[in-house]
């Protein structure tokens, strides 16, 4: 199975007055064709920065790649010329932003904004452009597209605006869509509709999706595989089943413990993860989660854990997987020594 997108040891930082912020550190993962890959983590863990870096959408004056490569169909996006990159943006890889309220130009009509995504690629007659816009609007579930096309963003509700964003990302027939917290600013019921829509379109149009979120519920409902990020690094990844039922990292376990499910008993106390995320100006040398980890060991503070493959898809970076580590009750530890 060939990967449609590959990130290899990508490190991305920002220059600020206070110093250099290492937002993303040595992140590697692949996107398989046709799948929905989720990236989950707290605010500030680097998931948005990673997502935006795939299309080099981070602020140019302050953000820069420290190292790594992003391969799309063999070409390295990091080193590509701007001209090539623009062809990919909107055409091969689409992006859906987090807040639909502010992500649309308030002074431009909807139809025009959507059309912009395809206008330059092929010179099409106006009538055909209108037709395409109309059909993509229908596809994302907007009724009466001819009327909507002539409206301005403020005339639409939040859910509809997000559908417009999806339409804008899809109209160029991309092979990949990156959705950065597409439902965070929406009502729960609207969010559910949007997710359902995205899943449906992904299957129908055979688009691979990278879905960024901090909500485990969204992951469970929509994704095939999951990546867990913290402090700019990937801590664990695997299929949704593996992550939810056999979490191999204390952080993942912490996330799972802190949410309420239908099965949670009435008087159970939710367990938050104590502490705050690490300082990204001077990130810790070892595992970024060590200071907050109840199983933290001396080596965790000293050295970054080595990579451990628990199955084809299930990978984790944690010293608890080492054969010398103690056995703990709620973490999935493989038969030590076997695969690491």
């Amino acid at each position, binding site marked *: 199975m060939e990967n449609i997108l590959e990130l290899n040891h990508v490190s991305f930082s920002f220059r600020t007055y206070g110093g250099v912020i290492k937002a993303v550190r040595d992140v590697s993962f692949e996107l398989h064709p046709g799948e929905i890959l989720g990236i989950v983590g707290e605010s500030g863990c680097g998931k948005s920065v990673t997502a935006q870096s795939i*299309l080099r*959408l981070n602020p140019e004056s302050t953000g820069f790649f420290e190292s790594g490569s992003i391969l799309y169909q063999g070409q390295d996006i990091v080193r590509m010329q*701007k001209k090539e990159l*623009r*062809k*990919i*943006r*909107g*055409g091969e890889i*689409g*992006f859906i*932003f987090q*807040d639909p309220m*502010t*992500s*649309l*130009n*308030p*002074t*431009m009509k909807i139809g025009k904004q959507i059309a*912009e*995504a395809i206008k*330059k*690629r092929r010179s099409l007659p106006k009538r055909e452009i209108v037709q395409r816009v109309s059909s993509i609007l229908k596809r994302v579930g907007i009724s009466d597209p001819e009327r909507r096309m002539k409206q*301005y963003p*403020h*005339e639409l509700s939040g859910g509809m605006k997000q559908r417009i*964003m999806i339409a*804008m*990302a899809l109209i*160029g027939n991309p092979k990949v869509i990156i959705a950065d917290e597409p439902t965070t600013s929406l009502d729960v019921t609207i969010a559910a509709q949007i997710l359902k829509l995205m899943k449906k379109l992904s299957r129908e149009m055979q688009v691979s999706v990278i879905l960024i979120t901090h909500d485990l519920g969204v992951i469970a409902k929509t994704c095939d595989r999951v990546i867990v990020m913290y402090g700019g690094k990937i801590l664990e990844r695997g299929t949704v089943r593996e992550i939810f039922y056999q979490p191999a990292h204390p952080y993942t376990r912490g996330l799972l413990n802190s949410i309420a499910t239908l099965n949670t008993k009435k008087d159970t106390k939710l367990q938050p993860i104590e502490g705050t995320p690490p300082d990204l100006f001077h990130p810790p040398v070892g595992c970024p989660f060590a200071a907050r980890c109840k199983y933290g060991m001396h080596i965790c503070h000293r050295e970054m854990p080595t990579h451990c493959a628990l199955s084809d898809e299930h990978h984790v970076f944690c010293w608890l997987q080492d054969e010398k580590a103690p056995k703990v009750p709620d973490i999935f530890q493989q038969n030590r020594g076997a695969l690491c």
Partner: protein
Amino acid sequence: MKKYVIKRIIISVITVFVLTTVVFFLVRLMPGGPFTNPKMTPEVQKAMEAYYGLDKPLPVQYLTYMNNLLHGDFGYSMTHANQSVNSIMFRAFPFSADVGIRALVFAFSIGIVLGIIAALNRGKKLDFVCVLIAIIGTSVPDFIIGGVLQYFFGIKWGLLPIAQYKGFRYTILPMLALAFATLASVSRIMRSSMLEVINQDYIKTAKAKGLNDVEVVAKHEIRNAIMPIVTIMGPLVASVLTGTFVIESIFAIPGMGKYYVESISSLDYTMVLGMTVFFGVLLVIANTITDIAYGMIDPRIRVR
């Protein structure tokens, strides 16, 4: 939307009304006023009395006054023999309008361009230069700029004429002096507006669609950044207008500003009266148009 426009117009009508009434009463209070000025000959005095109905009770005088105003009749100048205020104003107006409109167009266009350049080159030398120009323009009074321009370009280097209006070349320095402060304000606002827009999310969306930098700037950034400029048009027209008072005096241009200043110092009250009302009304109209225009340009206000 219609409600908004109507409300604006009503308020401006009331404002004009208040203004003219205030002028009416103030004129009656002026020392050595038009009705007691020893300079006047008895004939002129009689004509004044008849015109203003001074022998009649105050309310009647007021109505006469308002009636005259509505007909655009401002009476006769006291220092320019036998010339009606209207005729003097009509003669002088084209000069003022000429330099004034040139100045406004210049100020807005160059100001907007400078603001855009500064914003796009934030932190670099170009930005610094533009900001410097803006700071100078908002701090140095226009008569100082006029004087400095006169001195360097006219007297010292003899490049451009500095007095009177005998052709296009004569308008260059006055126009620059008049425009400078406005240009500075416009560029300052445009710059901060652009900077705000550049950081908005929808600009990222535009980039994600594959638009190139020029398109992003032209179609998305400028379009949104220019809106605040519309809101300040009224006050800027006002400052250009009051600027003509000094600039025309310095550059000896026979426009309304110069006549206004002269009539103040020569205590020609009818002229002062008439021109004050004229300027006042002009400014109120400018402000009202600005208010209405802003409502029309921002589609978010339009629908309401």
